[in-house]
């Protein structure tokens, strides 16, 4: 099913756009994997994640591995839907330019 194009200002910021791009393809990813992929600091990534979480687009999950606490991230169904709609809108706008 093709998403209805809707521009989403929460997703559109470069960092959050990249986070959603990665998470939209998989079930979940670890914090460090996302940080290394988009090349930002822990604090910058945390701010982006907090905004996505507040919008209801992201669900963090804490898991202890070998005595260390790790954060796993996944998009919520609302987040997946919003990202698909945003990509559809970007594609539409790019086609007009």
């Amino acid at each position, binding site marked *: 099913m093709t998403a209805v194009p809707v521009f989403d200002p929460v997703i559109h910021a470069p960092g959050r756009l990249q986070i959603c791009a990665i998470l939209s393809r998989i079930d979940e990813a670890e914090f460090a994997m996302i940080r290394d992929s988009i090349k930002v600091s822990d604090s910058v990534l945390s701010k982006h994640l907090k905004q996505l979480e507040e919008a209801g687009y992201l669900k963090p999950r804490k898991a202890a591995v070998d005595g260390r606490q790790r954060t796993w991230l996944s998009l919520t169904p609302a987040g997946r839907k919003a990202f698909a709609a945003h990509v559809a809108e*970007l594609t539409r706008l790019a086609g007009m330019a």
Partner: protein
Amino acid sequence: MTNQPDPREALDAIANARQAVPGEMKYPFSYDIAYGLCCGLLVAGQGMPTPWAALALVVSMVGLVGLIHWWKQKYGWWVSGYSPKRARWAAIGLVVVLIGLMGLSLWGKTAGIAWTPLATGAAGFVAAIVGGRIWMAVWKRELAETAG
């Protein structure tokens, strides 16, 4: 890229970010072997006498959970076989084959054919390896083709 990218820049950024998953990942063949052994044991177990069948089920399930854990630790991400739209059909196809083989194992057990678990287990082993690689190939193609 500026703070608020134009649509083309944004689409490029999305494409670049997505290269991180699965990237140029080449997972070891030993993963296939371990996955095949778990699935083969799961299939063969259905044709074994009751205490061995239960043990085979537990060992294969623990093995599959262990493989998921290993993958997550190594690559930092996870995708279920049933999540991608197109590749999920490869996963469903594999499940159908494995269930069919389990049925054969059970039939062999009731018919009293002792070697059935060996044959179905071996077939399950091969099917899991081939099915797993087909799934990965379909998924990678799906990632390359779909932008949304």
